[in-house]
């Protein structure tokens, strides 16, 4: 207890700086949080045993989200399955530096990090229970892109940021650890989504070793090059415009559909999340109402999340300052005892020691309270980050609708041209060979476009349905999570402030003889 002078210097107050700028970026917050929950603080007890304390509520009860220690990667905890008996447990561990086979153009990027992805499951599609693969961050990016293509209209959890700046600034180990945690959380969220957990994309990612099959390139540049040949003809409305109906399912991209791409781009720029004055006619009143509500929710969540960060910082500061005060008094106690010439000094030193010890204890309790608070209030951040997925799902819907409407207008212009051509040819006796040919081509285009339109409408309806079921799902989940958050937060506050009160009551008792309230 007495030799704590050194620990004064070790008290890292740099963690404070991570909180000063109330971060708008989700990843900034996460990086700060990982530093907060470290247990190598000089004031923390040597053994932190949370599991046996009945007073501590271990927060979130949603199935897959959990906090793993690095040491636990060997024995992944089996999380009790929720309603059904299916489980999909994923662990990310063992970061490993690899050398890139082919030297890259950009200097300093010949190495990359891979992570060991361990899966335990009883889902039938997997055909097995335990799998292990090695994946790099690029693979996660690919996975998330494939998912957003394959699950349009669904609220897909956002993947971790690429955060190039952070990787330069932070220490390598810190960054790798932060990323490992982020990847694990991301995969847990995917596994918690009722549809995505059964998806092929996720399964392939978790099971199949080696390079992840790349998606069909969205590389507009190369498409433009090969579509450039056809562009003049397209612009002049001439033939050769073979639209494969399935292509309509995706928003216009690539050379073949440059024209449609431009049209849709112009429209989508006008579409804003908050703006309700889009020229696209969204007739579903319920949807509009839900959209409005979710927009409002996002604002309030953002505000609450920000205030939660401030609260956590203030609680942290309180704990730190009480701790510092305690350590100062410990030094003073030692000083008075060493230099005592009269007994009153020793008496005072004894009083001081009681206060100092209590202060150090209280400081520890504040720290523990705070790390629990972080876990609970984290739910606000989680749901805020889900908003991004919701944005994408809604824009999937808008772009699908845009596609339908574009095709409808194309169809009507094709039809009117065909009409004009028909009346023109009927006036000429015997027919104009070239005109007849043109008419035939036009009729072909119309047929193809009709098919495309049907496809697009089907796709749009599908996405609409996805949106709707997802809105229900997210509302339900949010309700459960928020209730747990409130209960957990309040229960923790009660438990810890009670204990802190006990610590101080004892000291008040011990010093009551000085009180003049007699």
């Amino acid at each position, binding site marked *: 207890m007495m030799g704590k002078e050194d620990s004064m210097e070790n008290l890292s107050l740099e963690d404070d700086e991570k909180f000063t700028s109330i971060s708008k970026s989700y990843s900034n917050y996460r990086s700060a949080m990982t530093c907060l929950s470290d247990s190598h603080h000089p004031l923390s007890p040597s053994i932190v045993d949370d599991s046996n304390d009945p007073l501590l509520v271990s927060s979130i009860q949603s199935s897959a989200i959990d906090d793993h220690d690095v040491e636990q990667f060997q024995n992944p905890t089996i999380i009790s399955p929720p309603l059904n008996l299916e489980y999909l447990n994923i662990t990310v561990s063992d970061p490993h530096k690899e050398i890139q086979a082919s030297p890259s153009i950009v200097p300093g990027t010949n190495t990359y990090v891979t992570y060991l992805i361990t899966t335990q499951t009883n889902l039938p599609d997997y055909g097995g229970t335990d799998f292990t693969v090695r994946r790099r961050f690029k693979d996660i990016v690919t996975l998330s892109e494939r998912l957003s293509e394959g699950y349009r209209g669904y609220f897909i959890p956002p993947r971790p940021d690429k955060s190039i700046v952070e990787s330069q600034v932070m220490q390598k180990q810190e960054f790798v650890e932060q990323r490992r945690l982020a990847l694990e959380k991301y995969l847990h969220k995917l596994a918690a989504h009722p549809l995505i957990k059964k998806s092929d994309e996720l399964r392939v990612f978790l099971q199949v070793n080696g390079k992840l099959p790349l998606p069909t390139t969205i590389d507009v540049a190369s498409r433009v090059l090969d579509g450039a040949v056809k562009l003049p003809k397209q612009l002049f409305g001439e033939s050769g415009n073979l639209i494969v109906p399935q292509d309509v399912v995706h928003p216009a991209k690539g050379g073949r559909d440059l024209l449609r791409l431009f049209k849709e781009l112009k429209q989508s720029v006008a579409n804003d999340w908050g703006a309700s004055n889009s020229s696209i006619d969204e007739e579903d009143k319920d949807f509009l109402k839900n959209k409005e509500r979710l927009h409002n929710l996002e604002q309030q969540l953002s505000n609450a999340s920000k205030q939660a960060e401030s609260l956590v910082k203030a609680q942290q*500061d309180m704990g730190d300052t009480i701790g510092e005060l305690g350590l*100062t008094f410990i030094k003073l106690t030692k000083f008075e005892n060493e230099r005592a010439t009269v007994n009153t000094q020793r008496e005072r030193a004894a009083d001081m020691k009681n206060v100092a010890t209590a202060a150090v204890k209280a400081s520890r309790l504040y720290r523990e309270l705070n790390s629990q608070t972080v876990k609970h209030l984290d739910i606000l951040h989680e749901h805020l980050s889900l908003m991004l997925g919701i944005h994408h799902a809604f824009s999937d819907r808008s772009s699908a609708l845009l596609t339908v409407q574009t095709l409808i207008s194309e169809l009507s212009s094709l039809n009117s041209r065909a009409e004009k051509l028909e009346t023109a040819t009927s006036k000429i006796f015997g027919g104009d060979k070239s005109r007849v040919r043109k008419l035939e081509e036009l009729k072909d285009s119309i047929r193809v476009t009709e098919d495309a339109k049907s496809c697009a409408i089907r796709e749009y309806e599908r996405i609409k349905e996805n949106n709707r079921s997802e809105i229900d799902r997210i509302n339900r989940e949010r309700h459960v999570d928020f209730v747990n958050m409130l209960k957990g937060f309040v229960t923790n506050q009660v438990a810890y402030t009670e204990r802190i009160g006990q610590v101080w009551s004892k000291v008040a008792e011990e010093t009551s003889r000085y009180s003049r309230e007699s």
Partner: protein
Amino acid sequence: MNTMQRSGSGSLQSPRSPSSQAPFLSVSVTDPAKMGNGVQAYISYKVITKTNLAEYQGNEKIVIRRYSDFVWLHDRLFEKYKGIFIPPLPEKSTVEKFRFSAEFIEMRRQALDVFVNRIASHHELRQSDDLRIFLQADEQTMDRARFQETGIFKKKPADLIQIFKDVQSKVSDVVLGKEKPVEESTPEYEKMKNYIFELEEHLAEAQKHAYRLVKRHRELGESLSEFGKAVKLLGTCDDDALGKAFSELGAKSEIISIKLQKEAHHLLMNFEEPLKDYVRAVQSIKATIAERATAFKKQCELAETIKFKEIDLNKYKLTRSEKLAEAEREYEMLKAEGEETSRRFDTIVRLMNEEIVRFQEQKTSDMGLAFHEFAKGQARLSNGIADAWRSLLPKLEAHSS
């Protein structure tokens, strides 16, 4: 209520009525009031004296005093009672806008009350004429006295003078080729001086943290209040039972925020201020140490001078110079002065030894009380917070089902 605890009364026994037999002197500083306007504005205080001592006119007297009057009293006592640790004054405020804040005024009033009471309960200081003037004189007499003193007895930082004098004597020593010790250096005294200087450092650090702790309470209160508001708004997004639960959380946060602000104030007045007072007391001891060093040096220098005078005297005796008579007279004067100086120095030493014991005792009880108030406040706060949150739990259970 708390300030009364701290200052207490200056009596030897607690009085039952003003006309009891045992002598007592009880003072209180109250009712701060802003006087004047603009740059000239200042705060005046009521000083109420209750006593049965003969030297004082009547049983009760009320006078109006301002901060500079207290400074006058302090400086007079410092000049007259060398060796005694004069009770310290609260600092002069340098920040203009802070000067008239309610908190500052209350802190200052409390400190001034403690100051006067410490003087009134010190067995020697309470007998001073200056104290009597301070407690009794009408305002005009007080003003006159104060203006007189600013010229002659203007208090300069004793340390600064000491350093200056040291430099002076060292220079002259070097010039004259003398190496004489101008500092008293008995091992016990050295120990005491080191103790005082190191103690000040420790206490300053403790006071700094205590002040920060006050701020932390305020900050936590503010952020909890903001959090509560945000949570309430979040609750309006879902107009079901959950929304109500959020709203109640927000309301409780506000209540707890108020508790935190209250405790911040209590902490400031009853823990941080006593620590600051402790620091001031140590600084007062340092001033006395400087006075003692001055007295010691004077004693040494005088002894030197006397020695030289003796040599001269003997020389004159031998040569039967006519300067002998003159020299003898001077010698006698010097010897008398030397004795007086020695006497003064010895008094300082004796007093300091007594004072140190008194100081330690007083500080143990002052800090004991401060610790008690600190612990009591923290316990009250934590238990209050626990109770507030606990009352929310059954409601949360009801809403979630």
